[in-house]
């Protein structure tokens, strides 16, 4: 099936080879139409104005909350909080739950794979209240190395990625989550990459918190999701203060509203949230079975072709085992930025840099890598163009 035609950017840029979907995905036409539809037909501020248009906007906004809840298997739609992005979602947990329930000496367990968004909020908390940060190591394939002794009575939170944005590793979470819950620790899953490539069931995962962003999931930028178990969210104080999140305000105090509004201060990205529903519906219409089949075929083919280049080194998993559709690599004697620059001249977009995982790069003793990431709208011919482009870049620097 040709999914390219569903994405207007490939019509306006017919030669575009977009292999940077792990940074942000392209948007299907239905999402762009939903944004336009909202502004042309339903635009009003939600939850407060007592007119018919505000009613329409509120219904549209809240409909997405239900769609997201269903998408990840949440029991209640009030367990879905809309934020600006996954980063804000993690910051919300760190500032609200973390500052309330953690104290000096408590341990937060992370891993070497984590994105800066799942490092800095905890490092900020370390600075502020003196929590301890521990890291799970990774083996040579990038998989987490876990033994039960790493989670103790001191561990209060385990916060891990479900799929590494740098290396593409799909992490084994289940035994870690089980052990964490045995000692009463909470678990946060960074599902930014995982949510795009596989179905999520928060009940089966038994995650206490789970975060992801709409823009990686074929939706608009500016919308993030925080899922939290309702008993936890209810005990947490508000994150940001302002309109929408209150029940009553007096000159000297306020009473916070109920979840989810308690965590959604100010006018949110209403258009973005309403269009996110269209993105999830589009994703469901394609189906994860098709998505996984296409992404697996592309990744398998790309790995085979890239391994044939003697000067190219794969970073992270060497095969398909526990790997999503992300491939990180380096080329002898060519800086990743120069690789990306050369490919860019051929309208091939990849990412080069540390991918917001500086501790991981330090651990791997690399300044940076080049990263190609595939979505179901990519095609085998694009992998061929990537490989040909890499051959030319290498030749250019070694002529």
């Amino acid at each position, binding site marked *: 099936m040709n999914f390219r035609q569903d994405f207007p950017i490939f019509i306006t840029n017919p030669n575009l080879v977009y292999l940077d979907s792990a940074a942000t995905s392209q948007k299907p036409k239905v999402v762009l139409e939903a944004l336009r539809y909202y502004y042309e037909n339903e635009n009003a501020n939600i939850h407060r104005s007592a007119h018919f248009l505000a009613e329409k906007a509120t219904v549209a906004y809240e409909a997405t909350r239900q769609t997201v809840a269903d998408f990840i298997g949440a029991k209640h739609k009030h367990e879905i909080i809309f934020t600006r992005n996954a980063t804000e979602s993690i910051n919300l947990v760190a500032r609200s739950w973390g500052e309330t329930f953690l104290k000096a000496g408590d341990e937060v367990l992370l891993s070497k794979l984590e994105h800066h968004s799942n490092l800095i909020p905890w490092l900020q908390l370390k600075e502020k209240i003196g929590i301890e940060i521990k890291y799970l190591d990774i083996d040579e394939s990038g998989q987490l190395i876990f033994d039960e002794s790493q989670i103790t009575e001191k561990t209060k939170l385990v916060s891990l990625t479900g799929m590494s944005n740098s290396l593409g590793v799909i992490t084994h979470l289940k035994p870690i989550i089980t052990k964490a819950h045995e000692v009463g620790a909470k678990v946060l899953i960074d599902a930014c990459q995982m949510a795009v490539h596989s179905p999520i069931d928060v009940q089966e995962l038994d995650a206490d918190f789970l975060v992801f962003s709409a823009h990686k999931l074929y939706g608009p930028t500016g919308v993030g999701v925080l899922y939290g178990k309702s008993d936890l969210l209810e005990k947490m104080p508000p994150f940001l203060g302002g309109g929408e999140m209150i029940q009553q305000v007096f000159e000297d105090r306020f009473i916070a509203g109920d979840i989810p509004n308690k965590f959604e201060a100010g006018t949110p990205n209403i258009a973005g949230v309403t269009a996110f529903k269209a993105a999830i519906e589009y994703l469901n219409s394609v189906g994860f079975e098709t998505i996984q089949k296409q992404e697996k075929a592309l990744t398998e083919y790309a790995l085979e072709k890239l391994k044939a280049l003697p000067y190219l080194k794969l970073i992270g998993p060497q095969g398909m085992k526990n790997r999503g559709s992300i491939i990180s690599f380096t080329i002898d004697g060519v*800086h*990743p*930025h*120069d690789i990306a*620059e*050369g490919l860019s*001249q*051929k309208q091939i977009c990849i990412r*080069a*840099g*540390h991918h917001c995982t*500086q501790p991981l*790069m330090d651990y791997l003793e*690399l*300044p*940076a890598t080049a990263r190609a990431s595939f979505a179901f709208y990519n095609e085998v011919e694009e992998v061929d163009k990537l490989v040909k*482009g890499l051959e*030319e*870049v290498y*030749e*250019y*620097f070694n*002529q």
Partner: protein
Amino acid sequence: MCTMDIYAQNILDRYKKPFYKDKFNLSGKRVAGSGKLNLVIHKEANHSCGDVVEVGMKFVETQNLASLQVYSFSGNGCAISMASADMLGDVIVGMNMEDILNFSKDELYEVLGIEISVRRSKCALLPLLAIQNGVLGHQKEALKSWKDYHI
């Protein structure tokens, strides 16, 4: 025949065959000649891509004016950052500290002779940042940061 032409030939040449790279031990010998010697060594990194440039500059002070006699750099980075570090040597050797501090982003881009995209501006400017902060540090002045280059 290579079908790719990523950068202008001068950039590629200076990247592959730098003139000023690792030219002298940064803690090395005194430069011949009279006058007061000032050795300036400074390192800057672009953490977003892992590029590192360390510059070593030997200034000789005569009649209250310190001019750059010897320049060298070491480091790792992309073609633009390394070529920029090398090509800067052509223009700053012989300059005094004030001239070096007044050397602008636009003048650097002119020396490089290629269009520098916004996404590569830090690559091009990293060596200039290292050079100018080396001088500022020597003068015990506040160091520059990226925002001072308006990128």
